[in-house]
């Protein structure tokens, strides 16, 4: 009896180091401009080639502008990093390289699935912690450092210690107006940012089964925010229907063969996990964060915990966090004015997120004092926004659409929230300075973000 994780892991073991890590074969490597240059340098220094160039997909996304992408990048240091990325793609003969402006360009964790690179049963890595996103397809997907990027480029393998397994089950159905993002923020608020460290998580239960692929990606994406090595969901008809027909998905007889295998990818009844956690989906409300890590979240109608609710060792950090945010312990945040709204990122930059946002703002007007950055996760998402008529709805409500990239999620480009300003953000991290030095981030789902953009305040979208 095996778990889903065990089945995929065991199928990728090349060798095991005695009393040490496992040598794991990697089926798909995603690569971006920020965490790869030192890895390519390493190959050059050792005189090595890329071992399997067709198993690496390259896209520029982290350090890219979200306007005027057809023009040369203004910041010379950023431009150099993008040029280096291009030079590495050329020097090492990488066939799957998608620079700025390419139709397949976009946020790495968005273009992977939408082009069919991401498939059930795979091992997937990228020099980015949100690689956990791809686990939504029933894959073992996790973030790695640059030394490990070099290992994958050189050998198509990494050395990994086998993580423990955890199953998190969501019983019942989600309440109306509650999204996958709310489910994930709720879970992280209960487990804390280190609550799943050392574990690989499988998500299960009725609420998970009912999620679309986009929503499943949002949940798996946030696995790392509770410290998990990754998160995964067993593939089912929803998964197969999503993958079918995508450019790099198997075709014809290969599809039939793959599908037969994918259908075996589920946890056997009675297989044991190192840890099991169960939540009732009906307990989950629309969520916001109030602090400086994703575990500091609460229902939108709730109050920030009072100091006596925080364990003693954590009080300095808790107070430091509230001071940074300009909030008081015990305070309610509903109705608080906000300055910025960011819709986008590998967490919520997919077409469904734009549909939810557009559906809410349709026929309404953006609050004048709010700066809103709407950043599609890829050019394919951008194209779909236009084709579905969402672009017109958004512009009529006073919103502009920017060009794809990671943008204000990590603010490496010019999309920085100014010091002291509040941003309701659909991204994944509310760390100090994450969206710009001094920026104050409130994480939320696309629906809460839409409501905030219209009212200019933290607003329960159900009202």
């Amino acid at each position, binding site marked *: 009896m095996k778990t889903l994780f065990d089945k995929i892991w065991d199928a990728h073991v090349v060798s095991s180091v005695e009393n040490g*890590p496992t040598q794991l074969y990697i089926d798909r490597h995603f690569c971006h401009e920020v965490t790869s240059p030192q890895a390519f340098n390493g190959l050059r220094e050792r005189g090595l080639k890329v071992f399997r160039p067709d198993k690496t997909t390259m896209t520029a996304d982290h*350090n890219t502008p979200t306007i005027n992408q057809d023009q040369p990048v203004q910041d010379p240091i950023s431009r150099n990093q993008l040029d280096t990325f291009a030079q590495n793609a050329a020097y090492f003969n990488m066939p799957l390289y998608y620079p700025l402006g390419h139709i397949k360009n976009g946020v790495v964790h968005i273009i992977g699935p939408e082009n069919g690179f991401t498939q059930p049963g795979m091992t997937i890595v990228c020099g980015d912690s949100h690689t956990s996103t791809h686990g939504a397809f029933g894959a073992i997907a996790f973030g790695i*450092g640059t030394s490990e990027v070099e290992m994958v480029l050189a050998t198509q393998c*990494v050395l990994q210690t086998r993580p423990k397994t955890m199953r998190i089950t969501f019983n019942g159905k989600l309440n109306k107006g509650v999204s996958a993002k709310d489910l994930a923020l709720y879970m992280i608020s209960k487990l804390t940012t280190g609550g799943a460290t050392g574990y690989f998580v499988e998500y299960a239960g009725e609420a998970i089964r009912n999620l679309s692929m986009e929503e499943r990606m949002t949940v798996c994406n946030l696995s790392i925010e509770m410290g998990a090595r990754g998160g995964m969901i067993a593939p089912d008809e929803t998964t197969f229907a999503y993958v079918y027909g995508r450019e790099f998905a198997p075709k014809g007889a290969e599809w039939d063969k793959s599908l037969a295998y994918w259908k075996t990818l589920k946890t056997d009844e009675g297989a044991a996990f190192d840890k099991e956690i169960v939540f009732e989906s009906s307990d989950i409300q629309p969520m916001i964060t109030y602090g400086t890590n994703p575990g500091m979240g609460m229902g939108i109608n709730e109050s920030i915990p009072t100091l006596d609710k925080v364990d003693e060792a954590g009080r300095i950090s808790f107070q430091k966090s509230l001071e940074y945010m300009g909030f008081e312990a015990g305070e309610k945040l509903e109705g608080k004015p906000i300055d910025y709204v960011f819709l986008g990122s590998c967490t919520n930059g997919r077409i469904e997120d734009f549909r939810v946002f557009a559906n809410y703002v349709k026929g309404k007007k953006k609050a004048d004092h709010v700066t809103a950055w709407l950043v599609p996760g890829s050019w394919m998402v951008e194209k779909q926004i236009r084709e579905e008529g969402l672009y017109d709805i958004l512009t009529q409500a006073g919103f502009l659409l920017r060009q794809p990239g990671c943008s204000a999620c990590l603010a490496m480009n010019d999309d920085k929230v100014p010091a002291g300003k509040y941003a309701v953000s659909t991204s994944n991290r509310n760390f*100090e300075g994450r969206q710009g030095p001094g920026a104050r981030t409130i994480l939320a789902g696309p629906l809460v973000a839409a409501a905030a953009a219209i009212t200019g305040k933290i607003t329960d979208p159900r009202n």
Partner: protein
Amino acid sequence: MEKFIKLTSTVVPLPIENVDTDQIIPARFLKATDKMGFGNNLFADWRYNKDGSPKADFVLNNPTYKGSILVAGKNFGSGSSREHAAWAIDGYGFKVVVSSFFADIFQNNALNNGVLPVVVSTEFLAEIFSSVNTNPEVSLTIDLEKQIVTNNATGNSETFAINSYKKDCMLNGLDDIDYLLSKKDMIEAYEKAIK
């Protein structure tokens, strides 16, 4: 990679929990294409004012505390997978980070750069903070061979865990790529077998 065998040093205390990699090295410093110079920007937003002058209240700017061991609150290195965090810590001159708990990816990145993450119990961590608070000259000794960390103020010590492969790499200054390259035949055999 440099060898790591044994180290005795005074420590720099950072009693903050959940120190994420965005604090260790903010994203705007990730535009470099080499591994050099990150030490100057270690903890940049806690360490410098907007005009670049040092913030007097941050521990790295306090001459009382120095040494090549950083001691931090639990869940150190959470968040982004950026190896730049390990390069910044190494570049600044830290050889060891002591905490009661590390995030997984950071731990791997540190080990791949010859920086030793040492996991101690919550109680031992509190004792170290208390000793340093009383006397900043207090030192710790990290003995990798024996896997023992000693608080030289109290003489108390604890053993710490590290898998024997990684220990061997640290003691001998070897990295994973050398190991994997030596397994090329097995990798090709694996690829044939799955086809």
